[in-house]
């Protein structure tokens, strides 16, 4: 061998946890580039949703308080954004489950690295991927008649809220990925909770059209608040506002619910990671 004793880095300013997390995030992002098929289909699915809802259901769903011709499409796009970033959680679930099956999690756990770094890297990478997804979706939206009506600054805030929400559900998805026994289960378990989560919300239909008890569920669903906040910030129609507190303070409720969910699921996922083994 020509190298001498291993040369250890000085502790970076950002700290080891962040350093290790970025090393893992980089790896997960390289995967995205190496499997363009996966990226392609993860982009196609929300685009199909836009087209289906805009042209198939759109005419049948009236938006209270706004009967303009393109009202539903204006209303729909932030809903699709919210649904799409929520479904990104499934990628975290499946990805971690595959890492576990391949023995990579065992290997990471036997390295002198921070124990949260693998999950941090995973959630960051899965969130960054959503930047691309939101870009493609926004272009699709602009083509079908969606518009940003409230200035670029508010639009950026809307996108940041959506990405925060993506980051939050990525932690929940990570926790599920470490709990399930194999990738086959992960591909089901990672998706199943996302359907009620996104459909019991204001993403596609106004809450006021639902039965009373369901209105309560939908009003307190964080998907509703992130979607409503995005509608407000983009200047899109919101329907008749619900009087529930989260619907009156959509952006604030989104921030609070994301903080609470991360505070619950990040420690749960890290705890599970510390004790998990591939068999």
């Amino acid at each position, binding site marked *: 061998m*020509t*190298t001498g004793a*291993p040369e250890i*880095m000085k502790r970076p300013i950002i700290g080891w946890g962040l350093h290790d997390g970025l*090393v893992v995030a980089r*790896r997960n992002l390289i995967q995205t580039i*190496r499997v363009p098929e996966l990226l392609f289909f993860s982009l196609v699915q929300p685009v199909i949703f836009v087209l289906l809802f805009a042209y198939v259901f759109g005419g049948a769903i009236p938006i209270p308080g706004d009967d303009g011709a393109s009202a539903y499409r204006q209303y729909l796009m932030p809903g699709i954004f919210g649904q799409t970033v929520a479904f990104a959680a499934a990628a975290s679930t499946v990805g971690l489950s595959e890492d576990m099956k391949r023995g990579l999690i065992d290997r990471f756990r036997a*390295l002198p690295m921070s124990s949260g770094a693998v999950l941090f890297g995973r959630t960051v990478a899965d969130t960054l991927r959503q930047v691309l997804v939101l870009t493609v979706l926004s272009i699709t939206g602009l083509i079908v008649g969606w518009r940003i009506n409230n200035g670029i600054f508010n639009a950026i805030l809307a996108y940041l809220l959506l990405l925060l929400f993506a980051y939050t559900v990525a932690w929940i998805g990570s926790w599920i990925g470490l709990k399930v026994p194999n990738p086959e289960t992960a591909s089901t378990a990672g998706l199943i909770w996302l359907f009620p989560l996104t459909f019991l919300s204001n993403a596609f239909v106004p809450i006021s059209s639902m039965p009373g008890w369901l209105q309560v569920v939908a009003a307190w669903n964080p998907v509703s608040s992130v979607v409503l906040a995005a509608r407000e910030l983009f200047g899109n129609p919101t329907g008749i506002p619900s009087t529930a507190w989260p619907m009156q303070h959509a952006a604030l409720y989104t921030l609070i619910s994301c903080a609470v969910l991360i505070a619950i699921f990040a420690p749960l996922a890290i705890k599970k990671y510390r004790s998990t083994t591939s*068999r």
Partner: protein
Amino acid sequence: MKRYGDVVALDGLDLRVSEGTVLGLLGPNGAGKTTAVRVLATLLKPDAGTATVAGHDVLTKPNAVRRSIGLTGQYAAVDEYLTGRENLRMFGGLYHLKPAYVKVRTDELLERFDLTAAANRSLRTYSGGMRRRLDLAASLIAKPPILFLDEPTTGLDPRSRLGLWQVIRDLVAEGTTVLLTTQYLDEADQLANEIVVIDKGRVIAKGTADTLKDQIGGDRIEITIADVAKANAAATALRSVSTGEVSIEDDRLSAPVSGGSTVLVDAIRALDAQDVAVTDLVLRRPTLDDVFLSLTGHTAEEDNSPPPPSRRRGRGQ
């Protein structure tokens, strides 16, 4: 001690590996080999007992242990989508090595494991043997003094296996301490300075390959006779050179002997004197398979035990 529900996976396992040597941990599936490695590599916490690796307690100083070890498991635990070079750089980064050092070390390892030509290809194009080599290279990026090899050649073709054996021999020659688990008896025979045989989480035998073989008796002479009717005469002849019981099974007879190859000449003379024609005659040294069979009542390949664990006490320096 490590339990999974009612199953005791490691039960009073006591291991000690001397610096710069290879300890072969041998046992059937479910014997507790992998559990023992997982405890020593800080992946599992034992329910009782202690383990020290490179002087660090696995329970209280797991990060110090992790800095001293390389772990190569039964599956090539490397990233499928990254290239060989990207994989090694990632692990170098996670060991907190300086980027400049990782760069040189990566090239050095790729060269050593004959992966330079494939360095910039995604692992999806690698063969099984190449993945295992890269896996081992990733374990070596920080030059750990201690290496855990958990069934490193399972599923490899004979040529890849021989190649990996040579790499392991070279590492040991450079001073690396190795804990090797395997169900391949010839692998332990080839590589290990000392062998510990475990079953159901307990040590059932330990020693060098030779002492283990001696433990179940020495050489045996085995003959096949041309005419089954002559079996009794052949047995009489063998009894005159044997040190123990002669066993007869149709046209095949075997008997324990001592004295090396000269006993073969004596046996042929005795058989000739009894007028027994022989179609085959060999002097056989016991294999570790024989050792295993005699110790456990089943062969190493029989998969009849429940999942792992146990208590372990180990030391690698």
